[in-house]
């Protein structure tokens, strides 16, 4: 399989950020198509509409910083530089999958690029992020760990245990709540007693309440860079709430019909790609050039999907490897 780079590494300018978001958008759209064709084995939770957070946050991190997130984590993995072909192969259960076919859509991980994984039990990875940050403290190194989670996570205990411990130990971890307004099929407003799922909890842990427009990539970058710099300098954790919206359902199997049409339309007008495009046009970019970016990404992802679909499955014997550090799965000595 030919290597595919994806949108990792440091961005150069607004156009570069646009190209990265477009690439991720086209990747997710392609996965949606492949899901409908029956080519995705298992569920696929798409972050369509939330690209500015994954791309914006990753764009202010150093290569040695760590990030970790949820089952809606394809964009975040690609944003850190995970090879798109290996990620897609994982989703499709083809040979060369980034987790060898043992993780699938919900567990995309690329440690080599600082992406410490996608976790499918809501809230479970927040304590793990605390441990990653604690290791930096013990080793007296200055990497920062960024931990993404959804708005629904604030109602599970692990969230509170993790944010509390990070605050008490003043660890270099930045918690990023992607408030896409829904916990699965239920509006977040129906399951929290205040308006803000994460920001309203911040004061309980001695942290400032920070809310940012998560569909504005520049705003995401600004607030994240500030939090990362503070954490890196020993100033402790941050809890950032970023407003965004899932443009489609909870998973690719969900049409999202429970959402009012007017609400969906209002958020479509706040699409982060649309806004970045408008900003570029205002700054003098030609519409044709921007269209070409989209066309190129679409063609690249189409070709990538064809290549991955043409590969075989992972070797059956690999189902028996990687349980233990010696590579085996033997439980009897």
């Amino acid at each position, binding site marked *: 399989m030919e290597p595919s780079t994806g949108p990792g590494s440091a961005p150069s300018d607004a156009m570069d950020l646009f190209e990265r978001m477009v690439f991720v958008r086209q990747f997710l759209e392609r996965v949606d198509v492949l899901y409908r064709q029956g080519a995705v084995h298992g569920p696929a939770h798409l972050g369509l509409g939330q690209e500015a957070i994954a791309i914006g946050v990753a764009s202010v991190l150093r290569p040695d910083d760590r990030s970790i997130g949820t089952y809606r984590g394809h964009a975040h993995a690609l944003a850190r530089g995970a090879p798109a072909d290996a990620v897609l192969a994982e989703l499709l259960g083809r040979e060369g*999958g980034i987790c060898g076919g043992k993780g699938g859509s919900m567990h995309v*991980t690329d*440690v080599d690029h600082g992406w410490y994984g996608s976790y499918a039990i809501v809230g*479970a990875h927040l304590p*793990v992020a605390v*441990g990653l940050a604690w*290791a930096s403290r013990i080793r007296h190194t200055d990497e920062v760990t960024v931990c993404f989670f959804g708005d629904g996570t604030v109602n599970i205990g692990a969230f509170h245990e993790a944010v509390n*411990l990070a605050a008490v130990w003043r660890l270099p971890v930045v918690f990023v709540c992607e408030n896409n307004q829904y916990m699965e099929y239920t509006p977040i407003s129906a399951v929290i007693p205040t308006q803000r799922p994460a920001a309203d909890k911040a004061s309980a842990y001695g942290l400032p309440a920070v809310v940012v427009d998560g569909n504005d990539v520049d705003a995401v970058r600004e607030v994240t860079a500030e939090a990362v710099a503070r954490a890196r300098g020993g100033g402790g954790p941050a809890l950032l709430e970023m407003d965004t919206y899932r443009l489609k359902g909870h998973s690719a199997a969900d049409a999202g019909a429970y959402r009012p049409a007017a609400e969906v339309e209002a958020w479509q007008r706040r699409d982060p790609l649309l806004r970045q495009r408008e900003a570029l046009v205002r700054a003098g970019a030609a519409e044709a050039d921007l269209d070409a970016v989209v066309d190129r990404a679409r063609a690249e992802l189409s070709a990538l999907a064809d290549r991955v679909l043409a590969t075989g499955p992972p070797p059956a014997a690999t189902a028996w490897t*990687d349980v233990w550090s010696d590579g085996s799965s033997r439980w009897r*000595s």
Partner: protein
Amino acid sequence: MAQLTFRTAVQAALLQEMRRDGDVVLLGEDVTSGGVFKTTGGLLAEFGTDRVRDTPISEQAIAGAAMGAAMAGLRPVAEIMFADFYATCWDQVVNQIAKTRYMTGGQVRLPLVLRGANGFASMGFGAQHGQACEAWAMTVPGLKIVSPSTPADMLGLLAAAIRDDDPVLVFEHKGLYATKGEAPDGEHVEPLGRAARRRAGADVTLVGLSVTAVHCERAADLLAAEGISADVLDLRCLVPLDAAAVLESVGRTGRLVVVEENPGQLGWASSVAAIVAEEAFDALRAPVTRVSGGNVPWPVARELEAEVDVTAVRVVAAAHRVLQHTAVVRTIA
């Protein structure tokens, strides 16, 4: 030879390994002051708060932070004060710690230890602080399980668990903490996955773990007074399981009693019995027999505890049953 108690053996193992390897760190509730079971005393003074860290009452954060620190290359030892409390962080243990290496296709190693007090011990701890929980962990691939019966093994096996590159759960029987024994002078490490023969015999095989290995030794002494020689195996680990040692012994004795403290409705003894039934059926001269804790939540009153507890006397009675069965078969023949 050094004189140790089971309790000081825990401390000795931690001292030995923390002096040897700067990546070994300890976290848990009250660990800097020595802990509820007085197993971690003196560590803070030598290693400081970076490496010996008190936590809030947050088992999810404790287990998850251990996992994250391990992913980042440390060798954390996390104390779970009572094994019963695993129920509060079971997601971290069985969904995250046990599976993440496999789900990421081997991208991460998780060299961590979760350790703490386990078991019944007729100390009035009741149903939520007195359970034998080691079999819980055995239902999920990806966790090594250690439960020593002597101070020397407590030292040597905990040291090996800390050096192991996979997650190891160490169950320390609270009824053994005060027991005394000798350990070799100097560094002591006991490999995981090897059963220890505590008594050599030819008439019946008694298999135990932790406190039930002690019961088996006492039972063997009582049986010896009747002229019956019992082969006593202390499994020491459930994963890796030294099934070969059990099969070898049963091959000679033809009779097996497996002794566990956990409830027999689904305990580890069932797995040992099944292995013997599947792989050594022709060697058996009597049905395999289990002695298990009562299938009730543990009571508190002394007389009620005694009703459901596992004792050497119950092991002797079980040995008599398997020996009598052989006698009946011989009579019929």
